[in-house]
């Protein structure tokens, strides 16, 4: 760990402080920074001992209710965990695969799934024995849902799914240890005026007959977890593998994205803090023209800018996580008290979009700055910056939602629906 410490834990609960302590202790033993760099170089699949280790540590899907194998954590609790996960793994393979994806989507799958899916997939995933995630993007469209072509047709008490999903996290891991995906498909005609309607979500096991994984991508970063896809040819799933209501898949999917994006924001704050701490150690020691680098305003002011943005982002994530807690609390999903204010889902979505379009970029820009501060050393894999830079870039370009599409959500909620560009 870096000598410089920038953590401010005064507003954390005692339990949250202990979460942080335990995760840091675990990482020191199991996932020091040099292993993160090595994992990223060696590529997927994610090491099994770490999947199991993270599960034993209890960092995956903590927000799932206790009676269903989770811990009933609040989103604020889980965001604190996500922050530390980003801190210990700035390559964000852990944060992307096992924190944001499995927790965000695992919670949402559990919320809408039947008992069989919960027993066969969600609970084992919490234990680290299976992988569950999201498969919504298609070759023809991600943010643009009007181009979604995957379909499901009813046949007796089953649905038959066809089409291709792509840019999916963890396909190789799911193939290896088992698991499945939240898959969004059309169950009715595409309506030109409302292309997001008539979509339905299903849970599709990775070993379903007719499902063929495609070749994994050779990504720029976060290589310790795979990115792949699959083709569905007459894949049959039982009727009760439908997640939520028929025709409301888009809305349910947005709920899953909301959950995952909060954790991505929290992880990105953790990544930023780690990068600033590692960089601070260097710029305070390394002397140039008779002074440490940190003494020069050109570097110090950039450092200060990033630090300030990080603290602002931390507050943004915390506030939003609390809003999400209110949302579920009012539905009776989590036991909490003392919160009476009601937020509309679109209001919460605005805050979540602010997180998604800003905080991963902050982490990426901090890595970029740090490489400049360290020069050739920062560009080498001796330090974490280049690994982090390539990893967090995946959040910037689109993992769990592209940045520009978030701006449309924020614009819609601030300027009004009349100004939505693509309508």
């Amino acid at each position, binding site marked *: 760990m870096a000598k410089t*410490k920038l953590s401010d834990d005064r507003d954390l609960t*005692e*339990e949250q*402080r*202990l*979460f942080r*302590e*335990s995760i840091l*202790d*675990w990482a020191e*033993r199991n996932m020091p920074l040099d292993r993160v760099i090595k994992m990223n170089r060696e590529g997927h699949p994610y090491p099994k001992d770490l999947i199991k280790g993270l599960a*034993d*540590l*209890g*960092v995956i899907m*903590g927000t799932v209710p206790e009676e269903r194998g989770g*811990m*009933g*954590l609040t989103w604020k609790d889980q965001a604190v*965990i996500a922050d530390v996960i980003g801190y210990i793994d700035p390559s964000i393979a852990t944060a992307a695969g096992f924190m944001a994806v499995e927790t965000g989507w695992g919670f949402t799958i559990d919320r809408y799934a039947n008992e069989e899916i919960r027993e066969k997939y969600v609970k084992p995933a919490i234990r680290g024995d299976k992988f569950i995630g999201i498969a919504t993007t298609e070759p023809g469209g991600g943010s643009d849902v009007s181009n979604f072509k995957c379909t499901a047709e009813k046949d007796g008490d089953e649905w038959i799914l066809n089409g291709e999903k792509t840019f999916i996290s963890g396909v190789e891991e799911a193939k290896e240890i088992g698991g499945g995906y939240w898959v969004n498909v059309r169950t009715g005609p595409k309506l030109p005026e409302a292309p997001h309607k008539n979509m339905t979500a299903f849970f599709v096991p990775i070993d379903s007959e007719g499902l063929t994984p495609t070749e994994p991508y050779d990504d720029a970063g976060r290589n310790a977890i795979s990115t792949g896809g699959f083709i569905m040819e007459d894949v049959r799933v039982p009727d009760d593998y439908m997640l939520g209501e028929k025709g409301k898949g888009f809305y349910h999917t947005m709920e899953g994205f909301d959950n995952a994006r909060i954790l991505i924001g929290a992880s990105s704050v953790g990544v930023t803090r780690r990068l600033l701490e590692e960089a601070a150690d260097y710029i305070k020691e390394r002397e140039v023209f008779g002074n440490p680098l940190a003494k020069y305003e050109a570097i110090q002011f950039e450092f200060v800018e990033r630090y300030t943005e990080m603290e602002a982002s931390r507050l943004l994530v915390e506030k939003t996580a609390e809003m999400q807690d209110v949302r579920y609390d009012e539905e009776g999903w989590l036991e909490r008290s003392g919160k009476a204010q009601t937020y509309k889902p679109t209001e919460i979505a605005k805050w979540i979009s602010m997180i998604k379009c800003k905080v991963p970029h902050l982490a990426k820009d901090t890595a970029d700055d740090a490489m400049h501060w360290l020069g050739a050393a920062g560009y080498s894999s001796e330090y974490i910056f280049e690994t982090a830079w390539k990893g967090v870039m995946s959040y910037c370009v689109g993992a769990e939602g592209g940045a520009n599409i978030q701006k449309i959500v924020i614009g819609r909620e601030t300027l009004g629906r009349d100004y939505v560009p693509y309508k």
Partner: protein
Amino acid sequence: MRFVVCVKQVPDTTEVEVDPETGTIIREGVPSVLNAFDEFALNQAVDIKEKMEENIEIIAISMGPPQAKEALNKCLAIGADKAVLLTDKVFAGADTWATSLTLARAIKKLGKIDLVFVGQEASDGNTAQVGPEVAAHLGIPQLTFVTSIESIEDQNIICKKETDEGFIKIESPLPSLIACMPTPGFVPKIPNIREIMKAKRKPYEEWDHKKLGGDSSEYGLEGSESVVIKTYSPPPKGKGIKVEDPPEKAVNKLMEYFEKEGIL
């Protein structure tokens, strides 16, 4: 069976710096942690609980300011069943005598106890006195420098104890106090998130001096037998020398150095 584990929250020694002018420890901004010796003692108690068929209750106890609750929370997450924090302004400034008296009174108040676990010493004071003094106040045998517990049978405990010459096995009747000495390969248990959340629901109490009984003058600074006149850091060591030659040459070089410096 019932075990008590006495613990202390101490400044994280890896983060501590000494004020060069006053010679005192800079505590501001230094995180507090569970004393590593006590953590070892607690791990020993939890290991026994997990191995023995008999039902064992572990009670973690600490004397300190309200924030010492954090250390007890960690104990509950690691495996203690109940925690008691002895906290009262009256307890402030206690030396080892007053501290051990306070702890002993609290332990008596807990009822029948079979074993009292303490760390051999605390990393902030390093006196190693509190444990033995607690045993004296309670009138029970004390086993110090205990590195492991071999067995607990027929109201007897057999421990492995470190000595200047090596190790010995030592037997004592219950109840006893054991002062635990971490072994070099000791890997403390890391509580997971589930255990931390469960700890929230375990019994936790705060006791003041009224609860323990006796006069307030027996506790804290007033009840202390010793007085700290001054604290200071030892003068910094001079620059050492590093000899990296093969053994024979290195010995000769060292001998020359010792003679030159008048060490030999």
